[in-house]
């Protein structure tokens, strides 16, 4: 950190006279990088360092300035919206478009108090009689200036502005032509928005969109059905003569005004009711909801019948199941029967085959070398075969089939068994026993 010496003598600035910086040397610098580009700009524009910094700073500031324009100014009229106003008779100021006179033709009832004051100031500067006559305009322009002043007076008085706004028919938005093709929200949105200005209650629900819920839509229309308007038609009153001499006439005019006002008010209310009715009848959402309701009803009806239908269905299903079950069972039984028969037959065949095999085994084995006794052997084998029960038969046959040479021993064993059990006397199977 740099620390400076204390000041000992009383100097402010002292430049050593005649001194110069040591001679500089001219060298090329490298033309790369942003600092070089800045250097180039400085040199080419012949800016000193400070100037350059200032310009860069200004460039930054300007950007901010530009975006700093009073947003109100952009909403004001740049030119008089209605040129005929210049020739409008000041005495007839009530029939002039006061907003247009103020340069507020785009804002109208939306203009804030602040905007009205600003706009007025602008108009005064522009249309002040001093200025106008200086620029050679005729005296009649005085009239327009008076209208501006009247407009300012009217629009800055809360009550008077209400009366004026009530009769500012220019601000009314016409509903779409009957029978024409239009987008509901595009066409009706602005209509309701302009009508909403007369609502005593705020906030006024918005028209919404196709996505709005049924509740929102219902609330919207119920609000408009019960619309409470402060719209009043005093502004259109016939001027009441303030000459006190003719009191009757005055009262007459007043009564007439009152009647006219009431009539207009009733007409306006009727107009609004009709308007809302029509909007509702043309609102695609209402149609949608109605359709949905119808469908829902049908669905409910259908659902009510559903229980009975379900029962019948279940019954039919159960019946069908039972039937198919019975059928299957019958089929299975028949199959089983057939199977049984088949297996019985097979067993019989097997038995026959076995018996034949045993019977023939004597012959097949050359009567075990005792051909002389062939007849006796065959007979004895036959006896043994007939005495074998089913199980033994299979056993003996299997053994013989497996080893033919053991046939004699197998048969001998069987014979022995029969002899021992006494089933066959030994003599009858003498060859084997």
């Amino acid at each position: 950190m740099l620390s400076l010496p204390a000041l000992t003598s009383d100097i402010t600035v002292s430049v050593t006279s005649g001194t110069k910086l040591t001679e500089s040397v001219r060298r090329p610098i490298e033309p790369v990088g942003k600092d070089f580009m800045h250097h180039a700009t400085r040199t080419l524009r012949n800016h000193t360092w400070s100037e350059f910094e200032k310009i860069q700073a200004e460039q930054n500031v300007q950007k901010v300035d530009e975006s700093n324009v009073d947003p109100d100014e952009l909403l004001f009229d740049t030119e008089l919206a209605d040129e005929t106003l210049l020739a409008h008779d000041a005495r007839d100021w009530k029939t002039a478009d006061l907003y247009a006179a103020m340069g507020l033709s785009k804002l109208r009832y939306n203009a804030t108090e602040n905007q009205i004051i600003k706009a007025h100031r602008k108009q005064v500067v522009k249309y002040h009689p001093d200025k106008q006559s200086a620029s050679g305009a005729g005296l009649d322009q005085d009239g327009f200036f008076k209208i501006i002043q009247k407009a300012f007076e009217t629009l800055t008085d809360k009550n008077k502005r209400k009366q004026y706004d009530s009769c500012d028919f220019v601000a009314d938005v016409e509903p779409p032509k009957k029978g024409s093709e239009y987008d509901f929200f595009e066409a009706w949105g602005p209509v309701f928005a302009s009508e909403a200005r007369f609502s005593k209650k705020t906030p006024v629900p918005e028209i919404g969109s196709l996505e709005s819920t049924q509740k929102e839509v219902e609330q919207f229309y119920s609000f408009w059905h019960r619309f409470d308007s402060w719209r009043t038609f005093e502004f259109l009153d016939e001027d009441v003569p303030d000459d006190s001499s003719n009191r009757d006439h005055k009262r007459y005019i007043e009564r007439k005004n009152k009647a006219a006002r009431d009539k207009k008010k009733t007409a306006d209310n009727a107009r609004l009711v009709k308007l809302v009715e029509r909007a509702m009848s043309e609102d695609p959402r209402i149609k949608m909801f109605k359709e949905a309701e119808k469908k829902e009803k049908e669905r409910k009806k259908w659902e009510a019948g559903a229980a009975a239908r379900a029962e019948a269905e279940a019954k039919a299903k159960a019946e069908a199941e039972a039937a198919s079950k019975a059928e299957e069972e019958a089929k299975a039984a028949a199959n089983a029967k057939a199977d049984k028969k088949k297996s019985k037959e097979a067993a019989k065949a097997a038995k026959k085959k076995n018996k034949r095999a045993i019977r023939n085994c004597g012959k097949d084995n050359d009567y075990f070398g005792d051909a002389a006794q062939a007849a006796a052997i065959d007979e004895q084998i036959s006896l043994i075969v007939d005495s074998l029960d089913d199980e033994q038969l299979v056993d003996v046959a299997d053994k013989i089939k497996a080893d033919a040479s053991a046939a004699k021993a197998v048969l001998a064993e069987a014979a022995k068994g029969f002899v021992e059990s006494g089933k066959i006397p030994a003599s009858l199977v003498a060859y084997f026993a």
Partner: protein
Amino acid sequence: MSSPILGISFGNTSSSIAYINPKNDVDVIANPDGERSIPSVLSYVGEDEYHGGQALQQLIRNPTNTIVNFRDFIGLKFEEADLSRCSAGAPAIDIDGKVGFAINRGEDNVEKITVDEVVARHLNRLKLAAEDYIGQTISKTILTIPTDFTDVQRDALTAAAAKSGLKIVQFINEPSASLLAHVHAFPFEKDVNVVVADFGGVRSDAAVIAVRNGIFTVLATAHDAKLGGDNLDEALIEYFAADFQKKNQCNPRKNARSYAKLRSNAIITKKTLSNATSATISVESLADGFDYHTSINRMRYELTAGKVFSQFTQFINTTIEKAKLDILDIDAVLLCGGVSFTPKLANNLEFMFPESVEILGPQNKDASNSPNELSCSGAALQGRLIADYDADELKEALQPVVLNTMHLQKAIGLLDAEGKFVPVILPETSYPVQKTITVKNAKGDFLIGVYEADSKIKETTVEPEAKPESEAEAEDSEEWSDDEPEIVREKIYEPSTKLIELGIKDVTKGLQIIFNINKDAVLKVTARDLKSGNVVQGHL
């Protein structure tokens, strides 16, 4: 979006390309083979043309149709060119007084190609690689060149580039491009003097650059056309050849193909040893049917190539001398080029140079890991910058009146409370310039003495301290600190001329001092009380 301006670094050994991607980052572009460092090599096998690494591989089998190291030949007369450079590849021939090559394109069809054509084809390949990567056609480029390239060479490059469909919107010097890329990623906090040292394959270049307020001024340059990575390769080749000869009684140097194999393996070994501490080499049938297998560690390699390494260090020293500066005037050495991957290079510099010199190589966390990508990155950055300027504006900015600027020769500064000179504007600062210093907590009445000063190197001899017995035992510290007196060198400023004195009173909350030199060399010093806004101003 309009297509970006491509940054091209075109080297004798290899080339790199970069652009600023839509995320505003520097993107070094890899060719379709994935190479970011693309060998500057073209090779022909019959009809087919190979480029980059694929072409380099042909150097063993097909050397006479493989063109290497051609960059420096552009714009030179045949007799000016150092033809020994291309001895490993296609031999150079004289085509109408220019360097060229005779390439066999199959059968008896010999194509004679001038170096201009070779360069055009090479640049076209780079352009195609970039377009393939970015997905847009590229028509403009910024090309980096050595500081000693002549106007004739520049013109030849411009023409060759035009032939390949590229308009060179600006040439920038290689060291400035590299420094720009470095500063972009790692800005210096103050004004500095930097040596930008670029060690390539066949040549070394260095420049001393003064960086003042972000403006670069080249104070001196040096070139060595016989020093580079190839010298390291040769040291390794010689080492392996001697080893092989001893083992097999057969000399691999006498056969061109054996030599090419050795070279290719030596290069791989060298690169491996930049990352690893040992490397193995294995060549089948190197010579006379003998295979060669061996391994080498980094220390052996560094010893073997020791002479080359000291040449690199010496080269940097020479450059500093050419700038008439002392090593203590240098704040940093920025290492660029492929050789800078070698750890020994930075180690040597760190050992040889005083601590005040920062070595900005891949070993330093405040420097790029890819020293060979600095220059193309700088070119890409410059390309992004001038993309906002139209051709006329750019042409205007590059006029001599803009480039040739007056530079201060002596430091200007003020005296602190101890009477010591504190430099504010360094020598070699171009002007107009403005510098502001803030003395934050200053309170009271102050004298601001503005001086011009000379810098001197002060040498002090420091007698070695008598060491306590116990410490003498500790061997490692003992080893080199023998009893010779040590000479300490430091850079000091001696105020020479008093220029302006300002007195400012009743400062309560800090002070701002603004030094301004306008284009006519008029110095103005302003002191401003930060609290009251009171101003005292003096000018020469």
